[in-house]
């Protein structure tokens, strides 16, 4: 269990995070500059928070009031850097051995087998591929049996064709790890596949931790909706239970509590043709016109708006085969369950 309640003030940026991460994989999601990496650095002890408290598994790592600040060397946290940070002057074996607390020579062999890098033990990092570097860095971290893992965008430095295979390996590894894992990423699919819980970060602050299904299905804020891939987000005006969306030219009655709601969103692939929707599910519908059409790899992207208006275009994505069927359809529909009400 990791408890991290810290603030840090830098020139023009201030970080205020309050995270309680249980066992399992917790994703820190946020745009670049939202403070994700700084949070990890503070937990690892390589940056010092201005104030607050960090506790891992009952051990206090940092407490500004009690003047506790354990050096990174004593925190026993495995930190996988974005570029893996292998020591270029050391072979893979030597790199792994730097992580080992008790220098039993066989530990490098054992870990090399586990991470499939046995044939690379004598090589230098510059001779390794991106995937091999990552495996080497992980082996080095595991050599020290860390109490927690922190992964900072582990796949950002890899070619896309390598990513999936490594992601499956990493997924296996962190599932069996059985200690807290913090995972920084802004790739929503990766986060969905690998993580259990999600903390959304924005402008140095974080939203409360939520389990991934909830965060993806019902994001609470504009930031969460955007990070989980919602392309259409516009302001909304709330009057009692009525929600009106001037940018889309629609108005509907909501059966949810509308406290603090200022925006609505709908995912590009959740818009449907009115003809296939059940009337009772429909929140709003209108006759549309196509402003622009973009053909993507496997989908068609239509930018649409209410016919005869000059309103904001809505992004609508569908499989290419559905695009053909659309020729006969003039109306689209937003279902209640698909409209995201956002703070």
């Amino acid at each position, binding site marked *: 269990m990791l408890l991290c309640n810290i603030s840090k003030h830098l020139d023009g940026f201030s970080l205020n995070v309050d995270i309680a991460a249980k066992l399992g994989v917790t994703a820190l999601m946020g745009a670049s500059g939202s403070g994700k990496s700084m949070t990890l650095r503070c937990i*690892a002890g390589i940056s010092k928070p201005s104030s607050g408290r960090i506790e891992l598994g009952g051990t206090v790592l940092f407490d500004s009031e009690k003047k506790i600040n354990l050096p990174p060397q004593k925190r026993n946290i495995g*930190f996988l850097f974005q570029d893996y940070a292998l020591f270029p*002057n050391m072979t893979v074996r030597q790199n792994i051995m730097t992580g080992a607390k008790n220098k039993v020579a066989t530990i490098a062999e054992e870990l090399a087998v586990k991470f499939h890098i046995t044939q690379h033990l004598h090589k*230098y990092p510059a001779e390794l591929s991106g995937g091999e570097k990552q495996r080497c860095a992980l082996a*080095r971290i595991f050599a020290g049996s860390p109490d927690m893992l922190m992964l900072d965008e582990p796949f950002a430095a890899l070619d896309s064709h390598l990513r999936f295979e490594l992601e499956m390996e990493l997924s296996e590894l962190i599932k069996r790890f059985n200690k807290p894992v913090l995972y920084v990423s802004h790739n929503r699919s990766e986060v969905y596949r690998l993580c259990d819980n999600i903390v959304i970060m924005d402008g140095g602050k974080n939203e409360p931790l939520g389990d991934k299904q909830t965060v993806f299905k019902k994001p609470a804020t504009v930031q969460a909706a955007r990070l989980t891939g919602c392309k259409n987000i516009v302001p909304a005006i709330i009057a009692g239970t009525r929600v009106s969306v001037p940018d889309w030219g629609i108005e509907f009655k909501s059966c949810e509590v509308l406290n603090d709601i200022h925006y609505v969103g709908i995912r590009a692939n959740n818009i449907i043709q009115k003809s296939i929707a059940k009337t009772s599910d429909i929140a709003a519908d209108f006759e549309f016109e196509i402003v622009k059409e973009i053909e993507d790899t496997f989908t068609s992207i239509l930018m649409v708006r209410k016919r005869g208006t000059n309103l904001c275009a809505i992004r609508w994505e569908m499989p290419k085969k559905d695009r053909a069927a659309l020729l006969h359809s003039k109306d689209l529909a937003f279902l209640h369950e698909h409209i995201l009400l956002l703070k």
Partner: protein
Amino acid sequence: MDLFPLFNSLRITAIAVSFAFVLGIFAAYSVLRLPRLIKGICDTLFTIPLVLPPTVVGYFILVWLSPTGVAGSKIFEWFSVTITMRWYAAAVAVAIIAFPFIYRTARGAFENFDQNLLDAGRTLGLSEKYIFFRILLPNCKHGIIAGTVIAFARGLGEYGATSMVAGYISGKTATVSTSVAYFWQINREDMAFYWVMINLAVSVVFMVVINVLNKPKVRS
């Protein structure tokens, strides 16, 4: 032919550069983590021998170390030793002149070094000492060695400060560069030419060494 000046120059420079090497690297590493203002002040102080005329450096050494100087008088009082007009006075001068070359190249190498590697070392539980000697220094060695070679070459040719603090005493303080000037002044053009050729030969060797060191690294 008396080769004492060459031997003396090598001895002075080797000792001086050894000191400058350790102190320069230490200074560069210490300056890295200082607050900006203090860093600027230290940086100026450590670099100034590079831009000052060597005679000014010599002047300051004399003010400090001559038998009537601030520290020199004490040293004479306690140990009955004079430092100036001895070969080791030249070593002090050369150490000060050579220091900025090593300090600046080391600082540049440290600043360009990927800080993540140092942080990674810390999260892996490695001591600061281990990180400095086994990670930072080995990976910065190309820059530091190049700086040291330049410092060595500069030290061997040092004239201004050396002639002020050690003068030219044949067989005692004579160096390769003061020999050229001395023999020219006493109208021994043949000897001056001889020492000029030795200087040239030494310089060529250094240029070759620098070029070899600056070859692109095979390992990155």
